[in-house]
């Protein structure tokens, strides 16, 4: 059954026992423990498993091990005779081309294959070479740049930052070396030798009563199965959820399933047994019930309740009211209105959920990919019925998150299985399982109305939005509360009334996704602004500039922006581009060609941190007796670069170079709670905690030396010199007393952004600071085929202070890619697009040229002036693209994604109307 095969892996013959049909990816990873080769889809859709087979790139998930027998396999752990792979590693580091790093091994190998065949490529042929590998983080821009650098023989090394010069430096990400080497360990890369495996049996039905019969015969028939877990095996509460009062999602279905993909049982045993036992062998009986698909069905009178506590299926209502909208509309010279519709959007991180759990005495440890280790800890404790201190969460490298890994996925069931069997238990979601069962962006139906006076000043904005939150609450309340604050956009509007509802349905749960509902609402507002500009005879840039929130202005929630309100500067930074591109478009469109150019513009704002909620972060820096300097950082880096940014801040606050530090990231036994990696909060919130920790340690050191604030620190082994002119002094760290953590000196910092509760009208200070942006999009529309090519995006973002400009640009590039997908191609339909060939995300060939303009309007409250940038670039992208399509064709699209057939229909409707 498992004959030995010999693969020539990275030049070495490696003999391994593997079934002939086992994929090469599986044999490399599980047989040879070469985990640098990643598995993202097992279908050739994502390319993450790309290796070179006899020198040519292939998807290792599509190659039978039998066919690789005797052949040369190059993986990321290896190199090539020409040295291309090693040069690409350096170029990826320097350019910030690896963010989460899950696609990086494949990208490097695909690029090496391309460069070997075409050593002097242009950008298009680089795109051809890497076109079979999906990246969800970078927007491909930095990747193509890095490959071009290598092709030109011009790849430079990333700069180093000296003491006190880290903030603002483009240093390489601190976890980057492991990512380009393929040694960073993601959820599926932890392989405890004696682990059992777990597979969830999931409901194929969206709504059903479910009964499970006698499982003993199944266990007898499948000897490798150790346990089959059902709801009654859960030691504690069989429920989890984001909010303490909304633990509405069962770990295993208890009599009822509410969505396709709801887990009903867990098979635990050998890998062969859990993978080989068909669901059909289990005595699971479904009594299928009509499913509530979409918000309208769930809101109908008499619709069954998804959850008994919410009889009308309305999970949350959000509200904001300011002034008198009727008065505001009456004061307008023009009023625009519209109805807008968006789809479920899948995060499509390239790493499916994976990890393992093990029981250590009376404690449980869960090692898995996550964005929120302490939230995982709380829910695992709840499900096991253990105190919080008995649960340790060890985050692995996270292969993309974007909000999708804020929620619990496999953590509690792994913990239950490991707890009960007292064996390590592993699990890796399949791509389809990940897509079918985990959260999405909320589909929205929005009605909005906006007025402006003759000079274009906005006088009123109102909107009502229904957000399909799916079968479970997840982050539905967050979306319902964040949207009313942001919906009018970053503009002065005196009269506002916004109302939202998050509605339960039998669809896939919608949760957190980069922007928490704001991207959907921004499509509505920005379209209405274009309407108003048209009616008032104003250009689209001027109307935005005239209303842009500025220093001293008051927001719709009544908050006065005392500082860091850089939207006017953002708009000014791309004014010339906007008007020049409008001219170019007019020239290109002269004579009525089939392919028409268009230009669009949109603005956005985004509150950093949780809405009107305490969301503190605590950081620690410890100096050991041997001179080791450790940054204990509980903020999970999901690829965006928080490990690097926070270190840069901490390093400058302390006054030592970042490369002197060792980082410990996000282990709940070793680090404090830094809060979730979400809401664009880590740079701002944890950044302040990191700054305070650095300052605190520095103050202690200076106090010991009785040195002035300007003293320079020099750390050489266990000797710490405090250089302060004449009054320099050295400390022998080894001679200092050691505290219970092994440190001789430590500094801690705690920060919670200052906000206030919102009143019944949504008035208050929901966020301590806001990011602002304006983006221009240039598109070309094929009016016969209804296809859209985004040619160029100019993105001006006020980030307060760019702690690491390369990482800031990376966030903007990646956000633009996701915004482009939202606008043009991404639509998750439960049961229909639950893989990466029916659900499309942008490839390397779909990206526009991107011109990033970083605006720094520092926030005195931010660390070194910085604000968050994780979510903003996504928000402004789709409305700018829609505006550009409209400018090109006259078609006002109110539903995304604008698939070719939808644009084609809109163009025809317009033709017919004319």
């Amino acid at each position, binding site marked *: 059954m498992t004959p030995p095969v010999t693969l020539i892996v990275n030049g070495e013959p490696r003999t391994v026992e593997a079934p002939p049909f086992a994929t090469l990816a599986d044999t490399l990873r599980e047989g040879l423990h070469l985990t640098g080769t990643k598995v993202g889809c097992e279908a*050739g859709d994502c390319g993450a498993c790309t290796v070179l087979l006899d020198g040519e790139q292939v*998807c290792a998930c599509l190659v*039978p091990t039998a066919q690789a027998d005797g052949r040369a396999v190059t993986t990321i752990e290896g190199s090539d005779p020409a040295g291309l792979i090693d040069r690409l590693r350096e170029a990826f580091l320097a350019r910030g081309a690896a963010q989460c790093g899950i696609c990086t091994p494949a990208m490097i190998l695909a690029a090496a294959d391309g460069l070997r065949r075409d050593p002097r490529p242009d950008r298009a042929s680089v795109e051809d070479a890497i076109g079979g590998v999906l990246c969800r983080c970078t927007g491909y821009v930095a990747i193509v740049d890095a490959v071009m650098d290598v092709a030109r023989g011009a790849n430079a090394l990333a700069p180093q930052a000296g003491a006190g010069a880290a903030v603002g430096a483009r240093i390489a990400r601190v976890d980057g070396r492991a990512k380009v080497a393929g040694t960073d360990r993601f959820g599926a890369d932890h392989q405890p030798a004696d682990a059992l495996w777990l597979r969830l049996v999931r409901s194929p039905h969206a709504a059903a009563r479910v009964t499970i019969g006698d499982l003993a015969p199944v266990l007898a028939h499948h000897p490798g199965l150790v346990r089959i877990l059902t709801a009654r095996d859960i030691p504690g509460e069989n429920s989890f959820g984001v909010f303490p009062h909304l633990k509405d999602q069962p770990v295993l279905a208890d009599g009822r399933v509410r969505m396709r993909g709801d887990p009903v049982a867990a098979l635990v045993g050998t890998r062969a047994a859990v993978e080989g036992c*068909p*669901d059909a062998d289990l005595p699971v009986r479904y009594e299928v019930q009509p499913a509530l698909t979409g918000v309208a069905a769930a809101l109908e009178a008499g619709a069954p309740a998804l959850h008994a506590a919410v009889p009308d299926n309305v999970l949350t209502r959000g509200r904001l009211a300011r002034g008198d909208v009727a008065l505001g509309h009456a004061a307008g010279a023009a009023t625009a209105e519209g109805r807008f519709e968006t789809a479920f959007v899948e995060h499509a991180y390239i790493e499916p959920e994976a990890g393992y759990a093990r029981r250590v005495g009376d404690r449980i440890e869960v090692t898995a990919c996550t964005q929120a280790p302490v939230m995982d800890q709380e829910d695992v404790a709840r499900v096991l019925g253990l105190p919080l201190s008995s649960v340790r969460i060890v985050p692995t490298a996270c292969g993309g998150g974007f909000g999708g890994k804020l929620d619990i996925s496999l953590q509690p069931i792994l913990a239950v299985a490991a707890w009960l069997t007292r064996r390590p238990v592993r699990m890796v979601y399949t791509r389809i399982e990940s897509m079918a069962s985990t959260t999405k962006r909320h589909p929205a139906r929005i009605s909005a109305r906006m007025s402006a006076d003759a000079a274009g000043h906005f006088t009123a904005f109102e909107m009502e939005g229904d957000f399909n939150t799916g079968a479970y609450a997840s982050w539905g309340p967050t979306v319902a509360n964040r949207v009313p604050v942001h919906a009018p956009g970053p503009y002065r509007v005196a009269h506002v009334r916004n109302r939202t509802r998050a509605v339960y349905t039998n669809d896939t749960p919608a949760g957190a996704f980069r922007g928490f509902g704001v991207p959907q609402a921004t499509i509505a507002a920005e379209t209405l602004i274009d309407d108003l500009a048209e009616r008032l005879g104003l250009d689209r840039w001027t109307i935005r500039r005239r209303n842009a929130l500025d220093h001293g202005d008051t927001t719709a929630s009544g908050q006065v922006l005392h500082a860091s309100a850089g939207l006017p500067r953002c708009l000014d930074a791309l004014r010339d581009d906007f008007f020049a591109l409008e001219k170019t478009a007019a020239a290109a469109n002269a004579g009525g060609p089939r392919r028409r150019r268009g230009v669009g513009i949109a603005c956005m704002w985004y509150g950093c941190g949780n809405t009107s909620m305490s969301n503190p972060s605590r950081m620690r820096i410890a100096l050991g007796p041997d001179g080791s300097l450790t940054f204990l950082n509980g903020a999970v880096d999901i690829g965006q670069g928080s490990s690097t940014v926070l270190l840069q801040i901490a390093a400058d606050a302390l006054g030592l170079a970042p490369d002197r530090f060792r980082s410990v990231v996000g282990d709940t036994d070793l680090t404090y709670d830094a809060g979730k990696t979400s809401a664009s909060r880590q740079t701002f919130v944890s950044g302040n905690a990191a700054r305070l920790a650095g300052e605190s340690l520095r103050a202690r050191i200076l106090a010991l030396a009785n040195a002035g604030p300007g003293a320079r620190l020099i750390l050489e082994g266990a000797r710490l010199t405090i250089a302060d002119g004449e009054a320099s002094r050295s400390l022998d760290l080894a001679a200092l007393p050691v505290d219970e953590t092994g440190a001789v000196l430590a500094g801690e910092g705690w920060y919670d952004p200052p906000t206030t509760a919102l009143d019944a009208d949504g008035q208050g200070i929901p966020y301590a600071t806001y990011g602002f942006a304006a983006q221009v999009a240039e598109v070309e529309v094929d009016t016969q085929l209804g296809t*859209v090519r985004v040619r160029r995006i100019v993105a001006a973002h006020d980030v307060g202070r760019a702690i690491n400009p390369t990482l800031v640009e990376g966030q903007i590039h990646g956000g633009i890619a996701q915004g482009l997908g939202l606008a043009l191609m991404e639509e998750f339909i439960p049961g229909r697009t639950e893989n990466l*060939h029916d659900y499309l995300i942008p490839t390397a060939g779909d990206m526009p040229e991107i011109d990033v303009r970083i605006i720094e309007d520092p926030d005195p409250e931010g660390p070194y002036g910085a604000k968050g940038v994780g979510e903003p670039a996504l928000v402004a992208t789709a409305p700018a693209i829609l505006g550009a399509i409209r400018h090109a064709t006259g078609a006002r699209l109110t539903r995304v994604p604008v698939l070719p057939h939808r644009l084609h229909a809109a163009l025809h409707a317009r033709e017919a109307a004319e």
Partner: protein
Amino acid sequence: MRYFRPTSLADALAIRREHAVTVLAGGTDVYPAAATRRAWGDPSHPDILDISGLAELRGIADEGDHWRIGALATWTDLIRADLPPLLDGLKAAGRAVGGVQIQNRGTLVGNACTASPAGDGIPNLLALDAAFAVSGREVAARDFFTGYRATAVGPHDLVTAIRIPKRPGRGHFEKLGARRYLVISIAMTGLAVETDPGGRIVQARIAVGACAALARRLPALEADLAGLPLAEAPGLVAERHLAGLSPIDDVRASAAYRMAAARTLVADALAHLAGHPVARAA
């Protein structure tokens, strides 16, 4: 599950006769199908006949009056082969399939045998009047594809090669998808056009894919174009020429859109051959 990897065609045919096997060459269709079943709790898999060890199925060869494309020839083999302009469409289809990884593994014969309505190789094979070598007999492309994911390949058969008759003329392929790489076609066309020295069409053979359960030739259009200047051909493509198509609504596009897109793609392809390539927006 058994896994057979014979080294002679005779052995392979014997295995095919004796066992119900799935034939595997590059694996680009077999593994995704298995992954889909497995994700919803069906780990079953038929026995595998891996034909990659059959040397006689490799290669692309000039065999006098036709080109022989072996069953193991990959898209990359096709792209890199020195072939006449008649086969340009086939090469273009290869470059439009998946990404380079898929092109390096997937085979033209496998693409044809899967017989997906969206199989990028199939319209070209129809337009080229290709023939399949099926267990020693020859089956014309028009008879090979029998329905939705159905072919004339019997349970005991193996397709060993495709033969493409040498003819004058040039081929072309146009594909429409919602993104640049790794995309299943919304609609596509493969065609081969022979012109006389004066630029008049001697014969046009045009097929459209992803617009019916299987790819279709457009006989009415082919008839109308015969004898006309190629330069005028793009403007003549009319709705009635697409009468044989019966597209469906799916997650990628509506049926009505597919009809309109097919018409545009065919016109664009003719324009390309007439020397006026149309750069598309996506």
